[in-house]
């Protein structure tokens, strides 16, 4: 037996014995037995307190009391399950939302990349204007890697989408093409097989998920030869399940993000001069102690040497960009996530205010209970601890339920769009998230648990016991009114934030008449491999595909588009001086869209001037932006242009209005439409566009079948309606909108409960007063208007503060908005009135209850 257990055993007996001895001594002194006992008790003092103090000499008592408090708290909450449930649910929603956002923030911003010493990884590129992704050429990369001393490794990489043909049919996979130092840089260790040898080409590693999909359960995957875009490759290894390609850079414009499933080692050409230019992304790991500044100076020096040896005007215009890989990867999403994190904290504040309000209401009922406990000897500290434990139990239960909500929430977000934010797929509930939940619960417990404690602190047991069930002090109810007003204010701020984003989305979806993306099926086709070496083959494929699809039932028109795949510095207008590459390079490139006669119909393009071209015609159509940029006020119709240096002369036959049909949140790029048959180098990729009578997705199988009939190695990519494609083009914004709307909805709900709660409580407390008023002749409508006006005072205070707060805070949302001002008056007005109306309804319910108070009943009760 432990010493303290032995020491404390028989403490009750010992004290009894003590008092009995004292009593006997007193009797011996001549007192009556009763008086003797009374005096013995007085001399001894508070028995319970003495016992408790004795126990507390031994430290473990604290834990025992804590358990006792927890048991008592659970009993108390079980005795009032409605209260406990409301509190737990409110907190669960608030903590759940906060945790969901935090786990995203954690995965994207806080958690370092899964590669060793990720903090030393830097992204290197050259850009010609701000906002551009940037490129590095093969020879540049080779020079940097061989000459810069600040780096441990430097890796060049790019992506390819391959058609993989297996006995089960063809499918598309995304491959990362990496130089040999990638394995060291990423710390990749295959779970089966090996890494490629140095200089080994044609070796690929698979992600474990692809290995499962393609070769489920096959033990002989390693060493197998597969065909990727018609070329042979050998599988040498399989990477672990958790391994991901985490380096920044989008694959290529116009293609959806997708998990990398194949890793292929490639060589980079180091020869400067003619021939195709490899455009690469580059990441390096700095040596220990090397700084970004030193690395930058080194690379600049190398670039200067190269510029002297191989003068090239295009290279001079490009500016070196070196940043931490993590920063490059996050880009602007970091800001969006911070805004979300800030917004969701509001939900938590509202929930805390609401729960504090509920607690305050209950505190007035519990004053008596606490007075009793204090008068039998409980110290204030002990009562305070008890109350805190009660809050803590509720907060932890709320936190546990919140964890569940967060899990579901993150799963829902991933279902909406896995790739809306880079690394979003890595959002999981890890130790940091768990710590966040626990911390959050403790914090909320303190926040809402302290409010009633402040009022109970002043409790004088005598007063409390005397005035058994009187209403609490007016001071408390004003605290509650302030809390309710704060809830309204915070909810309004969130609501306005959500409203501004909704209006932005509305602006983005504001299609011109004739453009019906919900009726258009899109599919990307990429020509790879030896089968399409001859340019005519790709053109023939496009022609055949359009002809065959058009004959299918339900198809109204077909076309192809190379929107996003072909860029040019600008157009050469016949008769104008030919522009130098320097001049062309100074401005953002224009889009060259190799398309067909059907595009006007499919997209509902609106002709401003002239006409659309026919297939095979040596003609071109400009969009309005391009006409204004390149024609400088002259009439473009009838002029001849070249879209590439070596291309044929094309006559401009029309100008169409700008149309955003790939990226909803950016103005349309300057674009020139040319017949695809005039593209002499052939097409490397295009988007098939099919205008359907009604449901585009139902035609997807037909499209696949037609394509495989023409060439069974061709698989369409990203098959979806144009509507879906447009939605995905603003995926991060849609995610923000979804989250903000959810927050605002939760905030309003909780805040309205708050307003309703304070009014309902006030009515229940003032039942006596209202009864008297009615007995003295007050009409029901007087009572209703009295209660409603009291509630609306709280609401108006909240709304005023909310509008002021929103004006100050929506400024931070500027980059999340599109064609909407942060202080958009219409949004502010509509939502303020809307919230006010809702609050009015919330006040009316208790007001009507008050109106039906029966004075006879109420007055008799008191």
């Amino acid at each position: 037996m432990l010493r303290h257990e032995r020491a404390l055993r028989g403490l009750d007996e010992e004290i009894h014995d003590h008092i009995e001895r004292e009593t006997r001594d007193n009797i011996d002194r001549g007192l009556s037995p009763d008086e003797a006992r009374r005096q013995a008790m007085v001399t001894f003092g508070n028995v319970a307190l003495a016992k408790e103090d004795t126990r507390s000499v031994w430290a473990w008592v604290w834990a025992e009391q804590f358990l006792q408090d927890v048991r008592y708290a659970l009993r108390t909450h079980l005795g009032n399950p409605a209260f406990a449930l409301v509190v737990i649910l409110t907190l669960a929603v608030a903590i759940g939302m906060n945790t969901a956002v935090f786990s995203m923030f954690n995965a994207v911003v806080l958690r370092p990349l899964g590669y060793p010493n990720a903090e030393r990884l830097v992204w290197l590129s050259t850009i010609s204007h701000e906002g551009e992704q940037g490129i590095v050429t093969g020879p540049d990369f080779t020079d940097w890697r061989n000459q810069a001393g600040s780096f441990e490794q430097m890796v060049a990489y790019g992506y390819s989408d391959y058609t993989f043909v297996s006995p089960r049919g063809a499918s598309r996979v995304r491959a990362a093409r990496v130089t040999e130092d990638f394995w060291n840089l990423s710390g990749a260790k295959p779970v089966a097989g090996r890494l490629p040898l140095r200089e080994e080409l044609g070796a690929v590693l698979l992600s474990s998920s692809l290995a499962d999909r393609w070769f489920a359960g096959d033990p002989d995957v390693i060493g197998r030869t597969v065909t990727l875009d018609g070329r042979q490759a050998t599988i040498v290894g399989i990477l672990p399940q958790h391994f991901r390609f985490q380096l920044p850079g989008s694959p290529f414009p116009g293609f959806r993000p997708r998990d990398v499933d194949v890793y292929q080692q490639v060589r980079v050409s180091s020869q400067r001069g003619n021939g195709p230019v490899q455009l690469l992304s580059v990441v390096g790991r700095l040596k220990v102690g090397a700084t970004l500044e030193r690395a930058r100076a080194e690379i600049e020096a190398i670039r200067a040497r190269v510029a002297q040896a191989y003068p090239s005007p295009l290279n001079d215009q490009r500016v070196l960009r070196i940043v931490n890989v993590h920063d490059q990867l996050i880009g602007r999403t970091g800001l969006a996530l911070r805004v979300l994190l800030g917004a969701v904290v509001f939900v938590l504040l509202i929930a805390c205010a609401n729960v504090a309000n509920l607690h305050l209401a209950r505190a007035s009922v519990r004053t008596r209970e606490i007075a009793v406990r204090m008068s039998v000897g409980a110290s204030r500290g002990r009562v305070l601890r008890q109350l805190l434990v009660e809050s803590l139990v509720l907060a932890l239960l709320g936190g546990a339920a919140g964890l569940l909500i967060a899990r579901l929430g993150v799963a829902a977000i991933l279902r909406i769009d896995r790739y809306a934010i880079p690394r979003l797929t890595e959002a999981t509930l890890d130790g940091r998230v768990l710590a966040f939940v626990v911390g959050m619960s403790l914090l909320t417990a303190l926040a809402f648990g302290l409010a009633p404690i402040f009022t109970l602190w002043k409790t004088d047991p005598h007063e409390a016991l005397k005035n058994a069930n009187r209403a609490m002090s007016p001071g408390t109810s004003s605290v509650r009114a302030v809390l309710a007003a704060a809830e309204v204010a915070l909810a309004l701020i969130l609501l306005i934030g959500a409203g501004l984003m909704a209006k932005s989305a509305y602006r983005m979806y504001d299609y011109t008449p004739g453009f019906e993306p919900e009726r258009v099926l899109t599919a990307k086709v990429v020509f790879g491999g030896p089968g399409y070496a001859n340019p005519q083959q790709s053109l023939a494929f496009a022609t055949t595909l359009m002809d065959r699809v058009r004959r299918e039932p339900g198809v109204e028109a077909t076309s192809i588009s190379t929107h996003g795949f072909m860029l040019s510095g600008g157009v050469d207008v016949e008769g104008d001086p030919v522009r130098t590459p320097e001049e062309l390079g100074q401005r953002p490139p224009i889009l060259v869209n190799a398309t067909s006669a059907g595009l006007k119909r499919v997209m509902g393009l609106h002709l401003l001037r002239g006409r659309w071209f026919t297939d095979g015609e040596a003609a071109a159509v400009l969009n309005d932006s391009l006409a204004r940029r390149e024609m400088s006020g002259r009439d473009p119709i009838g002029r001849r242009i070249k879209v590439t240096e070596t291309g044929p002369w094309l006559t401009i036959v029309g100008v169409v209005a700008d149309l955003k049909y790939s990226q909803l949140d950016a103005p349309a790029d300057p674009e020139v439409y040319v017949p695809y048959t005039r593209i002499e180098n052939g097409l490397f990729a295009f988007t098939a566009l099919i205008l359907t009578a009604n449901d585009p997705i139902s035609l997807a199988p037909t499209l696949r079948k037609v394509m495989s009939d023409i060439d069974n190695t061709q698989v369409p990519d990203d098959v979806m309606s144009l509507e879906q494609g447009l939605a995905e083009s603003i995926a991060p914004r849609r995610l923000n909108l979804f989250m903000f709307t959810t927050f605002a909805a939760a905030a309003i709900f909780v805040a309205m409960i708050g307003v309703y709660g304070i009014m309902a409580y006030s009515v229940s407390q003032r039942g006596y007063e209202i009864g008297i008023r009615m007995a003295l002749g007050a009409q029901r409508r007087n009572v209703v208007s009295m209660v409603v006006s009291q509630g609306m005072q709280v609401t108006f205070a909240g709304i005023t503060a909310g509008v002021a707060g929103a004006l100050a805070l929506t400024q931070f949302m500027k980059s999340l908005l599109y064609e909407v001002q942060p202080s958009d008056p219409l949004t502010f007005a509509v939502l303020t009135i809307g919230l006010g109306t809702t609050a009015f309804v919330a006040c009316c319910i208790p007001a009507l209850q008050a109106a039906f108070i029966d004075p006879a009943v109420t007055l008799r009760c008191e």
Partner: protein
Amino acid sequence: MSTKRSRERVELLQGTLDLLILRVLRLGPAHGHAIAKAIERGSEDVLQVEQGSLYPALHRLIKRGWITFEGGASENNRQAKFYRLTAKGRKQLDVETSRWDRLAAAIARILRPAAQER
């Protein structure tokens, strides 16, 4: 209300009460009530010990290892513990006593001139 007063007294007496208990136990083992009575009688009833505060003090001393206890039935057949000074407690008593003497002497030196002025 009594709660508050008793709390204050415990704090007031804390060090002193410990010293007094040690002093009483030097004369031999005793149970709680006897210790309380010995303190009251020994001080000619000047020091009124609130007897309830004796027990926390006893346990504090047990915890520090200055006293120990043994169980035994008292004459009215109840469980009662007999508390006894340990060697460590005896040493502590000497230290505390000399410290108390120094303190008392110092306070007396300060108070006496003031008393003479009156």
